[in-house]
């Protein structure tokens, strides 16, 4: 039983550490900002989830302590990582639009305009008389 717990903990810790390292290496290596978002938001979050799972198994199997904090942290991170990535992408789009960034785009090129009329929703000022509008008053 103890050996099984050891093997599970070691596998999860090594997997998590590898994914954390791969995410940060992607932040160094990838060529443009939009591509650099991929590494930290996906690989690093997955690696941290694996480390937290290893911690749950370790404390339960070796010390007999049941802790749920790790699961809370993992849940919170999995909810918030896409939101912060979305905000950072918005910042990048806005700064590109006002010409603050001269950096060439990477392999994928600049993000394309959406189909149909209009531009990305983050560029559009909210219209009057809609519920979420700030232009009403």
């Amino acid at each position, binding site marked *: 039983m103890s050996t099984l717990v050891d093997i599970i903990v070691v596998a999860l810790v090594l997997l998590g550490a590898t994914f954390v390292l791969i995410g940060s290496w992607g932040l160094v290596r990838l060529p443009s900002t939009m591509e650099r978002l991929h590494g930290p938001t996906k690989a690093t979050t997955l690696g941290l989830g694996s480390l937290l799972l290893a911690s749950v198994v370790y404390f339960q199997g070796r010390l007999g302590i049941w*802790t749920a904090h*790790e699961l809370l942290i993992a849940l919170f991170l999995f909810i918030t990582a896409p939101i912060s990535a979305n905000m950072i992408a918005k910042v990048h789009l806005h700064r590109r639009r006002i010409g603050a960034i001269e950096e060439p785009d990477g392999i994928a090129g600049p993000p394309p305009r959406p189909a149909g009329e209009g531009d990305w929703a983050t560029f559009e000022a909210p219209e009057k008389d809609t519920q979420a509008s700030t232009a009403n008053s």
Partner: protein
Amino acid sequence: MIAIALGIAFGCVALALLFNGWRLLKGPALGDRIVALDTMVINAIALIVLVGMSGGSDTYFEAALLLAMVGFVSTIAYCKFILRGDIVE
């Protein structure tokens, strides 16, 4: 066996923090620096979890939870400041 794995994991996370610091200093765009700071917070949480495992005490997880919340809020605040302060919408 677990101690060796934890040592390797400490090395990996420390190297990841170094990579993030390099990206934070180099830039070039503002978005890169925000991504680097956000990733540094996540790596710091990983480091706290590893310290808690190697020390065998579960008192560190409140710190990890608080750091997760503060890191998320600070990233959003930084992005919002740039979006609202630089651009007249």
